């Protein structure tokens, strides 16, 4: 079991409030991703759930029990840190065995569980090594091993992949997703990388300045962003947000159109512009187009497009793919 409920949770450091009245329901077995820009409070929220920080007001429930004042050791959660936080003076075996020793399990059971975790994570041949003798990816796996070995109610991941290189990050992302499927345990994952959020999550919680902007499945957030912030944050390249005449004619303060939805033509369309930079990725082409009277718009075209710097191009936003936002940035 690993159902977690946050009820009006607030956190202030001295006079600065970093988390504002957060309410959140996480059901058992869910993979929840907290995403947002740096300093939005996502790591603080995770640390509040872990018990590493005390809430200023509000309550936290795990499986129906109020754990607001329960120390981290007694919450039954496991955490994987960004810095791995392995014990440098212990072997890989002892690192993984540490939580079991703390739980007072007998040596035989510890050995069996450590070996089982090591087998899952491909660490069997490294059990006698010290963390300093491992690569970044192996260290991350030890940190995960230490977390899974005690069968916690939920796993908390604090930007676990940000210290790894791009290729390794993709592999680890898949490994963590597979782990979630095989263990079926609640996972809360903090990241600033919206690709990680979109690919891994059952449910994404978008945070901004200590407040939840929107909660929903990845595609819900992509299709129906609640406001400008979520619209701009989810999706890569970013949604084009336009103000002024094009928005006013559509009865909105701001309109948004995703680069991949814009229709491109060399002959005709709604907006005419000149290609500034064309980024050719092979599978896609990103065009940064300077449109008269509007500004820069990014458009994404599938495959290779015969357009280069200085070429004229026509852009048309399809009405059914257009997002409209009101005075305060709310979706209308």
């Amino acid at each position: 079991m690993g159902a977690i409920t946050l009820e009006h949770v607030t956190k202030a450091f001295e006079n600065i409030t970093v988390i504002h009245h957060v309410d959140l329901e996480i059901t058992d077995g869910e993979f929840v991703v907290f995403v947002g820009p740096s300093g939005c409070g996502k790591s603080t929220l995770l640390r509040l759930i872990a018990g590493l920080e005390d809430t200023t007001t509000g309550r936290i429930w795990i499986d129906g029990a109020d754990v607001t004042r329960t120390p981290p050791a007694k919450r039954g959660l496991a955490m994987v840190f960004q810095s791995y936080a392995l014990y440098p003076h212990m072997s890989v075996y002892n690192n993984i065995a540490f939580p079991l020793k703390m739980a007072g399990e007998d040596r035989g059971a510890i050995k069996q569980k450590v070996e089982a975790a090591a087998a899952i994570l491909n660490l069997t041949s490294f059990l006698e090594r010290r963390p300093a003798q491992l690569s970044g990816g192996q260290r991350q796996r030890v940190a995960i091993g230490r977390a899974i070995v005690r069968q916690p109610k939920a796993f908390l991941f604090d930007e676990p992949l940000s210290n790894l290189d791009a290729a390794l990050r993709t592999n680890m992302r898949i490994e963590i997703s597979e782990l979630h499927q095989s263990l079926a345990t609640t996972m809360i994952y903090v990241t600033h990388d919206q690709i990680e959020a979109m690919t891994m999550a059952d449910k994404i919680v978008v945070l901004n300045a200590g407040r939840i902007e929107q909660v929903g499945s990845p595609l819900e957030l992509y299709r129906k962003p609640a406001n400008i912030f979520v619209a701009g944050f989810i999706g890569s390249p970013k949604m084009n947000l336009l103000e002024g005449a094009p928005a006013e004619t559509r009865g909105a303060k701001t309109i948004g159109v995703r680069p991949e939805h814009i229709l491109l033509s060399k002959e005709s369309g709604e907006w005419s512009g000149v290609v500034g930079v064309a980024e050719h990725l092979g599978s896609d082409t990103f065009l940064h187009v300077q449109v008269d009277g509007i500004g820069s718009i990014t458009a994404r075209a599938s495959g290779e497009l015969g357009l280069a710097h200085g070429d004229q191009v026509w852009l048309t936003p399809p009405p059914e793919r257009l997002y409209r936002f009101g005075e305060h940035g709310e979706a209308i």
Partner: protein
Amino acid sequence: MARAVTAKRKLTFTVIGWLIGLTLFFPILWTILTSFKTEGEAVATPPSFLFFNWTLENYFEVQSRSDYFRHAMNSVVISFGSTLLGLIVAIPAAWSMAFSPSKRTKDILMWMLSTKMLPPVGVLVPIYLMFRDSGLLDTRTGLVGVLMLMNLPIIVWMLYTYFKEIPNDILEAARMDGASLGREILYVLAPMAVPGIASTLLLNIILAWNEAFWTLNLTASSAAPLSAFIASYSSPEGLFWAKLSAASTLAIAPILVMGWFSQKQLVRGLTFGAVK
């Protein structure tokens, strides 16, 4: 060409390094050599370096005139006692400052250090009177207490610096892994802080061993450590260089041997954080 220049520079630096090292070591060497001379040879001009009548007479005389082992035992008790007591007080203090700092932690650290800026002689009279009235004059207990207090700011500062180097994430990981505060200290913090604690211990034993101001002023005979043992040879009847040197050699020998065997630990401790 570049290689030749490098070799030449290397040689120059080696020579300069040796010269500085020998210059620093020379007074100790000279003290040791003088301790094996007769009083006449000790003051002879020009002084003889190695070719003199080597004798152990000064050592016998020093031992017969004043009890070396009693003084040495006092030094051991005072230096080890004050350092261990200091660690017992400083570890929790440094711990809370490093891992649970408050708004005033930096001020407290500065205030502690500022007590070292006061010349000890400035508080000699009040401390002497307090010692006299409480019957602590010429007692090991009194000296252990006063030397502990004198070195406490340095012990706290050193430990604080080492503890600050230990990433908080690792301690938090232990907490998440179900460790109580006691187990977190025992299994995670202590093993990681051992080098720092050990070098603090060594440095403070050396400082307390060589301390002369308080030991000379607050002792007479029964609690007198080796610093008082040396001082007793610079008497009003005149200086006896050879005997003074023998006394000094005997006084510094134990700490020199200890320093030699722990030099790796000391260097690591003193440069902690600087070379990582």
